[in-house]
């Protein structure tokens, strides 16, 4: 049966070659679109790792120019107390510029047992940071005052990095290294649920949190504040006045994480929507083309089909034959296409996990089969309805 169909296809290789190349390219386009969609969906499924609803971000710069670390600390302690004194404020934390949903990224190395990973997000945070963001502690503890005078500085890592460094093993108390020469040792005191700091659709990535020490205030520029639901625009204006009057030499800006999340998601969603629309249009185009060509081919083979019917083939077996033919065509192009697509996980292009590519390949294969099946269904049914007498008479 298959051998026979194969022969039929081989006899018309020139015509089928074009059809096949069209299927091949649609497969590749679909593979690209699905890879992206699967990647985004995978990230979207994971927990946010924080509660951003009532968190505001304050940006400031060069509020106080002084060489004296003590007066620097006093200056910001006063600011902290005056903000904390407001009834609408639950908690706050000074932190480095890479606050959630901002465009700022700091990356560095982190390694354990000679396994170094680059592109690890480096955050600087205070003891109140996790509480302010409503983060989730999985093991150990967050920083506290006792971490001030330790010989090896304490750090907290997120579960993504924990997975890479320690696998199933114990993480708490282990010494990791932030340089490749063993000179930058840090002690892990806690593991938190990874915070998706670049929006719902972006991967959280690895992260190391360092405790802010005295003197860091020289270069810090952000405060995250958790407010109560009662905090309204009037309160915000008041808070702004307080900050701007206290830090006279600084540009102050207040942003809401809720809005920042919208903006950063927008940047991922827009390309996704554009690609999906383009992909859809290409698929419709291909479907129509396939449909037309198959339909024409069947009309040209009326004599052959009439002959088959005359010697006793049923209508359904004729239509099955035609559907099978196009399915085999599709299989050929999918084999070639998969050969190209499988290179992506093998060569680890774009640093995505192999699973994402494999799922995308699978989805694209199913999609193409479905498309080809649907496109050959109607022409096949038409062929089944051919009367042998009429068809043979034509010749």
């Amino acid at each position, binding site marked *: 049966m298959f051998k026979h169909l194969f022969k039929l296809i081989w006899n018309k290789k020139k015509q089928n070659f074009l059809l096949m190349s069209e299927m091949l390219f649609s497969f590749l386009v679909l593979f690209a679109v699905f890879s992206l969609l699967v990647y985004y969906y995978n990230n979207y499924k994971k927990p946010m790792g924080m509660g951003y609803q009532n968190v505001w971000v304050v940006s400031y710069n060069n509020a106080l120019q002084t060489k004296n670390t003590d007066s620097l600390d006093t200056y910001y302690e006063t600011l902290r107390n005056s903000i904390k004194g407001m009834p609408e404020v639950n908690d706050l934390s000074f932190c480095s510029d890479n606050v959630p949903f901002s465009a700022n990224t700091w990356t560095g190395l982190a390694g354990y047992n000679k396994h170094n990973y680059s592109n690890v997000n480096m955050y600087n945070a205070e003891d109140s940071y996790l509480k302010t963001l409503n983060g989730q502690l999985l093991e150990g503890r967050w920083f506290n005052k006792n971490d001030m005078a330790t010989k090896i500085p304490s750090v907290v890592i997120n579960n993504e990095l924990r997975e890479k460094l320690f696998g199933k093993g114990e993480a708490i108390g282990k010494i990791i290294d932030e340089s490749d020469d063993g000179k930058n040792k840090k002690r892990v005191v806690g593991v938190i649920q990874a915070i998706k700091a670049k929006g719902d659709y972006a991967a959280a990535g690895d992260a190391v949190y360092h405790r802010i020490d005295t003197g860091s205030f020289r270069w810090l520029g952000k405060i995250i504040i958790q407010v109560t639901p009662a905090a309204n625009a009037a309160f915000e204006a008041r808070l702004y006045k307080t900050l701007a009057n206290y830090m006279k030499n600084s540009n102050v800006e207040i942003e809401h994480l809720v809005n920042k999340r919208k903006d950063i998601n927008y940047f991922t969603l827009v390309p996704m929507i554009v690609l999906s629309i383009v992909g859809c*249009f290409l698929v419709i185009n291909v479907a129509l083309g396939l449909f037309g060509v198959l339909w024409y081919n069947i009309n040209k083979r009326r004599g052959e089909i009439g002959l088959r019917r005359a010697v006793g083939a049923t209508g359904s077996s004729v239509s099955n034959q035609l559907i099978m033919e196009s399915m085999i065509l599709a299989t050929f192009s999918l084999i070639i296409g998969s050969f190209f697509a499988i290179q992506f996980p093998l060569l680890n292009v774009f640093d995505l996990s192999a699973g994402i590519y494999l799922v995308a390949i699978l989805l694209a294969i199913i999609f193409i089969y479905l498309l080809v099946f649907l496109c050959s269904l109607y022409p096949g049914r038409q062929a089944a309805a051919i009367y042998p007498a009429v068809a043979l008479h034509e010749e």
Partner: protein
Amino acid sequence: MLKNYFKIAIAVLRRRKFFTFISLFGISFTLTILLVLTAFINKIAGDSYPDRKRDRSLYISRMQEINKTGGQSSGPLSYYFLSHYASSLKTPVKVGISSIFSGTNTYVNNKKIAVNYKYTNDAYWDIMEYDFIEGKAFNKQQVDNGDKVAVISEDMKQQYFGDVPSVVGKYIEADNVKYRVTGVVKNVPITSYMTYGDIYLPYTVSKSDVRKDKSYRGGFFGVLLAKSSADVPRMHDEYQSMIDRLPMESKEFDKIYSHADPYIVSYVDTGNEGKSGVMIVLTTIGIFALLVMLLPTLNLVNINITRIMERSSEIGVRKAFGASSVTLVYQFIVENIILTLLGGLIGVILSFIAIKVLNGMNLIPNLVLSINFTVLAIGLLICFLFGLISGVYPAWRMSKLNVVTALKAS
């Protein structure tokens, strides 16, 4: 002759309506996608508001410093560098300096307004040609005095003052400071990041003292204006040689890169000497356009082959009466081009609709896409190519038909 071909083409189009629909659908949608893309690129790269003197300007947007250990860091420049080094060049007649826009808030009747402010020097306003709806820019005198004056955008005026006829001389409060409005300018979309801002202030009122900071890098862009476009290459080289002679900021660096480039090159600058932004952008757009065009072209080739084979009797007759293969190929390609141009026409109409919808959605504030002559010309060219590419192979197949079999096939 052509008239005849045209008649035949129309007759053929009306013969198999479904096939005609497929062809036209493919062509018109592909063209729509490409036209919207070109309109977008054209707007971002080609729209010269407010810097209409682009032909004689060079832009300095970044500096990259290479460590001895191989690390690198890059970013915009400092005011000190631009005013001290870039302004020392002989060729530029003017050096405009402006900061990267950054955000702050202002509150009007407990309503929050997000404000993007930008610090500029006075030469910036001479180089840029903002459309002033009212008032004018601040002058050198006001900048030197450190007057608290501001030029605001239309949007800002609308948000802050509401519907009032004139706001020149009124005060706007931003970042807890009151500034006197000297002028209102037409909006710039945020995609023109070197010239975008809601409120433009003299650099002398900046809260951090930009004149004291002696490092090379900070938060400023520079624009160099030459006397004429003939001076531009010389200006470029002069800046380059100045950079080559520039002393290192500290011992840890051993190389500095910075360029004064034409607008587009500067716009897509990655800040990394090793990665040319222009190349990255061109490859991305190229691959995208190729993919979008490849599939419909294949589709058209497929459909065209089936359609030609349907006309084998016609071809047989013409060949029997002595038409050469060349004539037939020529006829078929012309027919195909007529078809694609028809699809192109539909595509243009669809693009107009798509662009209207996109502008209505206001995805990027103040970015108003439009189809102009350039975009249309590109569209026409694309259509022509389409017709040619998708017509050649089927026509060649057809011309090789044997007369006898062609006549017998019917």
